[in-house]
């Protein structure tokens, strides 16, 4: 079995960006995602995740390579100036490509 390669896009953002980010994911064509709360430290100070208003979320979506490119471009253009966040992509081998 030689599983086909897709992109795993990971976004770490403040909790208030949740709605806008998942809306964007839907818009660019992601068929699913996984998310969970995280703590973090970065350029905009630390986010100790003590109250929901100050939490970070890590959002992961597996998408085809082209979708990943669009996604990262939209994030860099529309989201980075407004929200505390980072985003990155990596190659992953998935089992059933038709899902994504």
């Amino acid at each position, binding site marked *: 079995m030689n599983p086909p390669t897709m992109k795993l896009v990971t976004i770490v953002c*403040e909790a*208030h960006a949740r*709605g*806008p980010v998942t809306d964007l994911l839907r818009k660019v064509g992601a068929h699913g995602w996984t998310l969970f*709360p995280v703590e973090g430290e970065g350029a905009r*100070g630390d986010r*100790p*995740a*003590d*109250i*929901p*208003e100050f*939490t970070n979320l890590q959002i992961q979506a597996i998408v085809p390579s082209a979708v990943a490119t669009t996604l990262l471009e939209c994030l860099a253009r529309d989201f980075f*100036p*407004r*929200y505390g966040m980072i985003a990155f992509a990596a190659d992953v081998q998935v089992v059933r490509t038709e899902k994504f």
Partner: protein
Amino acid sequence: MEILESVRINLLSPAVLFFALGIFAALVKSDLKFPEPLYIGLTIYLLVAIGFKGGVAFAEAGVAKVWLPATAAMVLGALIPLWTYPVLRHIGRLPAVDAGAIAAHYGSVSAVTFIAAINYLDAIGQPYERYASAFLAVMESPAILVGIVLAKLSARQNGAPVGPALRTALRESLSGRSVLLLVGALAIGFLAGPAGMEKVGPFFVTPFQGVLALFLLEMGTVAGRRLKDLRRVGPFLLGFGVLVPLVNGALGVWLGQHTGLGIGGATLLGVLAASASYIAAPAAIRVALPEANPTLYLTAALAITFPFNLTLGIPFCLALARHLFSQT
């Protein structure tokens, strides 16, 4: 010297002492940390309890007594941004979007400050209108909308229409968990009445003060962790965060007196006006005005005004109310 005595009593109450312990824990970088689910659980409990009690009292008092001060409270909340916005813009020289965001926070209200004030009045035996939670419920949203309109109108040159941001904010602030729990519990208390209170009172009333003490311990750690941001916001906001509550508090007390409330109720309306939202407002503003700098409004509301009101603002409002009522 009565005000000094009021302050002393407040500072030595378990609630305020636990708040101080929380700040201390944050400053010595203790590993004491309330996990987020605990924080959410405590806020749900406090909001439901205060709303439910207010609803039962509302049912007992009748709409006739409540509508006038409630409307006054709502109007006051909506008007506060109209005078704080120009101050922020012209004296503080802040960008329109930040001025609008901060004005929205100070027009909206802090449920925890209100609850601490109720706690304080209970502790010193000062009676108050128990339906006052209704004022808390109606004051959360209007100021947020006004603040956003101000920011958007001023920044109109960049071509952004006001409508969508307002709609987003309206949805956020009406379906946000604090308004929903408060209004919902008020309605339930209203429907269930004293008979319902008998059933859930041992959970929502008896342990209330202790739960509040524990919650303020947590709020102390939360505020304490943001104290280091104080040097990022500059002296103007520091003064703003202390003086504006005094002015708004006085407005609230005065308005309470003139809409038929007693000393206790006028004090509470003053505390509401003096308080700055750090839950409902940030959630709505972050989505409707994402360009506004959260460090400014959060630090002002949470690290300056909240501790100030908790320690000095509440007894100040009471002393003022007593003074005004003694004049008439």
